[in-house]
């Protein structure tokens, strides 16, 4: 069953450009120059129940804009959106009861009152019964370890403390669908791990569908099987994360650390292997081929020269994505 169905979705922003100088300002009074920019450019996307999808792309790619349309905050310029069987914008009040949203850069708790007062208000807003609240939120509060923070006003919390409370607040009504826009922005490693573990848990326990944007690709690696890659408002990849890895880069790198200094002509030369010197005793081999070629290379090199250390480097997701951002998907 599809929780999210998006077809040919498009959002244009009109931006006015001011003419320069006094006469320009005067002319602006009557006619304005404007440009339209398609922040989201004709995307189609289906997400099934229980999926955790990573939505990634460069700054300004249109991720937040998409999420704002999916949550009913913005009206699309064109295209159709059905989320949880509803039109987010038309059936707003009914629809938002079925989703939870966290915007990393924006607090949704009331700044001046204690966290638990915010929770209490949200509990009333979403008409959650005392029973459900205690059972569900008791667990959430425990896992996110926010018990001691509840009686503090939000403005006195640190970023990581606040983020955990924001996440808890988004879950008060235990929504089947969760939108997280950069939920781990600015968090330390421990808090990140805690949040990831927690998201996995609710995904398993309640089959909660999660759409997540982040610039920290380790989040995606830890959580999402599927990634959707956005570039200038267009989807350029939609599929398994590990396939992205194997598609985008061929081959491996082998790093040899020798006991003594080695000159280039003492190395082994095979077709499809390129050497790069890192320092006096370390060389890097770019192997364009499969595991057999790699092991053949290693055995030949080791016979010829005494070595201290060998390391086979997998290319990290981060590197792949960097390459894609830089060179486009053509590479894959």
């Amino acid at each position, binding site marked *: 069953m599809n929780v999210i169905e998006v077809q040919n979705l498009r959002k244009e*922003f009109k931006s006015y450009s001011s003419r320069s100088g006094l006469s320009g300002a005067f002319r602006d009074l009557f006619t304005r120059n404007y440009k339209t920019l398609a922040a989201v450019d004709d995307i189609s996307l289906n997400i099934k129940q229980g999926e955790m999808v990573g939505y990634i792309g460069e700054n300004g790619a249109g991720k*937040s804009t998409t999420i*704002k349309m999916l*949550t*009913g*905050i*913005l*009206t699309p310029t064109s295209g159709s959106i059905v989320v949880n069987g509803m039109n987010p914008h038309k059936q*707003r*009040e*009914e629809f*938002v*009861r079925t*989703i939870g*949203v966290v*915007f990393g*850069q*924006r*607090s*949704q708790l*009331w700044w*001046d*009152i204690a966290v638990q*007062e915010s929770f*209490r*208000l949200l509990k*009333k*807003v*979403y*008409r959650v019964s005392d029973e459900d609240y205690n059972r569900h939120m008791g667990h959430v509060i425990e896992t996110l370890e926010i018990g001691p923070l509840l009686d503090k*006003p939000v403005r006195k919390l640190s970023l990581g403390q606040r983020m955990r409370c924001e996440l808890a607040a988004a879950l008060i009504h235990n929504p089947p669908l969760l939108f997280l*826009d*950069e939920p781990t922005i600015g968090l330390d490693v421990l808090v990140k791990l805690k949040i990831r573990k927690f998201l996995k848990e609710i995904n398993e326990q309640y089959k909660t569908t999660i759409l997540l944007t982040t610039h920290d690709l380790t989040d995606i690696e830890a959580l999402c099987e599927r990634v959707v890659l956005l570039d200038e408002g267009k989807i350029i990849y939609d599929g398994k994360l590990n396939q992205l890895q194997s598609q985008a880069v061929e081959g491996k790198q082998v790093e040899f650390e020798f006991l003594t200094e080695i000159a280039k002509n003492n190395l082994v030369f095979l077709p499809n292997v390129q050497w790069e010197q890192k320092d006096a005793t370390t060389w890097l081999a770019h192997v364009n081929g499969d595991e057999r070629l790699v092991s053949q290379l290693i055995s030949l090199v080791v016979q010829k020269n005494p070595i201290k250390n060998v390391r086979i480097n997998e290319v990290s997701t981060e590197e792949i994505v960097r390459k894609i951002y830089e060179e486009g998907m053509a590479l894959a």
Partner: protein
Amino acid sequence: MSMYLEMIRVRFLMMLAYRTNYYSGILIYSINIGAYYFLWSAIYGNNEEIQGLSVLQMTTYVAVAWMARAFYFNNIDREIAAEIKDGKVAIEMIRPYNYLGMKTMQALGEGIFRLLFFSVPGMIIVALVFPISFSANLSTWLFFFVSLVFSFIVNTQINLLTGIMSFFLFNNTGLIRAKRVVIDLFSGLLLPISFYPLWAQTVMTYLPFQAISYIPSMIFTEGFVGKEIFNAVLLQAFWALILLIPIRLLWSLAKKQLIVQGG
């Protein structure tokens, strides 16, 4: 329904958290009432009454007008504008409630807080310092409170309208400021409507502003009697209904128009 009550409670709590702001407020209101008291005493001179109001009624009018203002006054127009400007309105749109309804409840929480901690003690202090007449008539009090509720409603509706305008204008501090001056002038806070020249009075009957301050103050000072009271409250109710129309229209336009600023 209970979430709206909860919102009133939360706003009340917020006001309590910042209650020190209010000590300065009491001072400012007292100075205003004092200044107008002396001004009106000078204007009256030896006159028994002007435009049907005695000096005593006039003093009472000034005091009650300012204290009522503490109740109906709120800054939700500025809050709406700020929430649009910094993009906070996005959060409001993902809540299963009516944004304007919630804003109204926040205003009410604020109003009730000020009524209890500001207007009531303020009125007692003012009554000790200046000669003020309190009606002994229960129905006067009753009508006064009904009309006070309407003045809150009408003023809040006008604030909502000004606030919604920032969906279209984006920067509407000018409009908000102008609205404030217009309300202070035309609501009867500074000068009872009956003191304006006749043509101006006619114009003002077609505007909602006198429903905000003039009507409750006139009821309190018993400047209105008998059927006048009834008609005045009816006029307030009329405006409270009429103003719903532009609010509805503008709001449905605004939602389509909404652009959320920032990431």
